[in-house]
């Protein structure tokens, strides 16, 4: 990048369901712009700067509930600025599905790296808790998502389950391995005040949970949640002056698929396979680029936040992130190498998306928030036990979106 960029402040609200009629004291009614404002206020307070100092903003756009809240339901960035108070700054609204969080971090970092401004904010909020896993139109001719849903009955977990079953066949992944993912990722969940489900699970509990789309069980699939997060980035030399522990952004990028990838990714009805093109290429492309930008190799990564939307995701994305053969992540998991606190490569110390639930556009930023707290040594009882040089966050999104970030200590 032209100018170096660091993170000077992060903030998020607790993931949950706003409002949750059964726990209104914990999850009261909040609109999406309100959730975004809360996350921004926390990030500003963390960075000890004022809203007036923010020179550019990028907002993650949530696409699925606009019928409930009109323009605020898609969370246009200016709807948030209206609540914060208009200051005339450039604001851009971005939709890259579940990869939106780090896609907007990239836009904010590029705004600073290019010299357009010195301080930029990425913010995302969304209300996924009431469900979004279905097409949003009834256009039978042009909406491919409608076609896959009504013609094939393919739900999101069904897609994950098909990939998972083939992995079990090819790599020897066992039902216990799948359950173990939840056991391991949920270990730190009781210590994360921002997680929706602040509890851990036993192997027996997971294996006894009902099968949703076999081979995947209920506790092996994440829920959908509401959530909001904000990250403030700053030109690195300036960041060192205004903050004690600026977190250096080594690289942040977005990946999309390669033509010929055999993956029939969500919303699509088919794929056209070409020899030599790997599956999940959007993830591999993002990860490969983020390593190249940072000038490091996968063996240098000390800490990972990945999209554990299901137990299959956890294993498949470890393949992509660490450049492993299917079956190797399973062995590492069994050996304890991936323990979120004590492992050789702690993975998902936040508790992961399993503990948070999927708040589609915000989760990529939540991962970054966790890495920032971990690098600054502020993660409390879930603080990883090893010295962390490089930390990586990666999120995939339906329909061919992906994003990845590498961070390190900037002090």
């Amino acid at each position: 990048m032209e100018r170096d960029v660091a993170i000077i402040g992060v903030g998020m609200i607790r993931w949950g369901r706003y409002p949750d009629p059964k726990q209104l004291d914990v999850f009261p009614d909040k609109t999406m712009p309100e959730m975004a404002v809360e996350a921004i206020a926390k990030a500003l307070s963390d960075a000890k700067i004022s809203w007036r100092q923010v020179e550019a903003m990028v907002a993650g756009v949530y696409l699925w509930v606009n019928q409930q809240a009109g323009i605020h339901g898609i969370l246009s960035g200016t709807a948030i600025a209206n609540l914060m108070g208009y200051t005339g700054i450039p604001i851009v609204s971005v939709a890259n599905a579940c990869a939106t969080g780090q896609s907007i971090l990239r836009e904010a970092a590029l705004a600073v790296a290019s010299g357009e401004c010195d301080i930029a904010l990425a913010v995302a909020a969304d209300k996924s808790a009431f469900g979004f896993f279905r097409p949003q139109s009834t256009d039978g001719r042009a909406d491919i998502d409608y076609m896959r849903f009504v013609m094939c009955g393919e739900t999101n977990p069904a897609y994950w389950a098909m990939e998972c079953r083939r992995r079990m066949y090819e790599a020897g992944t066992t039902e216990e391995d799948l359950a173990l993912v939840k056991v391991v990722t949920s270990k730190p969940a009781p210590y994360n005040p921002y997680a929706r489900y602040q509890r851990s699970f036993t192997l027996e509990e997971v294996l006894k949970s009902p099968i949703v789309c076999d081979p995947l069980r209920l506790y092996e699939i994440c829920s959908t949640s509401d959530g909001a997060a904000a990250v403030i980035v700053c030109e690195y030399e300036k960041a060192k002056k205004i903050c004690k522990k600026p977190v250096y952004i080594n690289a942040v990028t977005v990946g999309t698929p390669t033509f010929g990838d055999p993956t029939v990714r969500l919303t699509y009805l088919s794929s056209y396979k070409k020899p030599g093109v790997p599956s999940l290429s959007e993830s591999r492309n993002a990860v490969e680029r983020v390593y190249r930008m940072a000038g490091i190799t996968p063996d240098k990564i000390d800490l990972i936040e990945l999209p554990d939307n299901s137990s299959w995701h956890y294993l498949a994305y470890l393949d992509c992130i660490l450049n492993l053969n299917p079956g190797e992540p399973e062995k590492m998991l069994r050996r304890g190498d991936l323990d979120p606190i004590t492992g050789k490569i702690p993975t998902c110390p936040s508790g992961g998306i399993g503990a948070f639930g999927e708040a589609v556009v915000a989760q990529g930023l939540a991962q970054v928030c966790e890495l920032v707290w971990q690098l600054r040594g502020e993660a409390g009882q879930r603080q990883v036990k090893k010295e962390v040089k490089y930390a990586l966050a990666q999120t995939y999104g339906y329909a061919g979106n992906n994003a990845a970030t590498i961070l390190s200590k900037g002090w």
Partner: protein
Amino acid sequence: MTEKVKKKVPIVEGLFTWPSDQPALIASRCKKCGAIVFPKATYCPNPDCEKNSQNMETVQLSRVGKLWSWTIQYYPPPPPFKMEPFKPYAVGMVDLPEGLRVLGMLTTTENLRFDMEVELTVGKLYEDEEKEYITWMWKPVEKACKK
């Protein structure tokens, strides 16, 4: 049961040949590079190929393929999906000789095996007073039948 046979119509038109005794999926093929797309597309998806709609021809895909993977969906998906009455069903991904991997429901949840041969057919998801609404489905082929 005593009523006359209702007309079968696809839920979404244009995805497979119908009416037909041997329904086939309808795809586009690029005359320049051979890339195949399902459902039909106006432009070739090959990044190195020119974006000229004249290059795309309509083709019918092979009716027999190999089951790459599958799952059984145990809960009813929310609308707009509709199946009456609901019962758990299998969804699979099928590898066709053209190099395409295609999604689709399966006609059964029983005795499914990796890489088994499956054949294209149609099945009903729901009906109203006048019509039965159908989609394409993959049906296991009992014995390998190569044509």
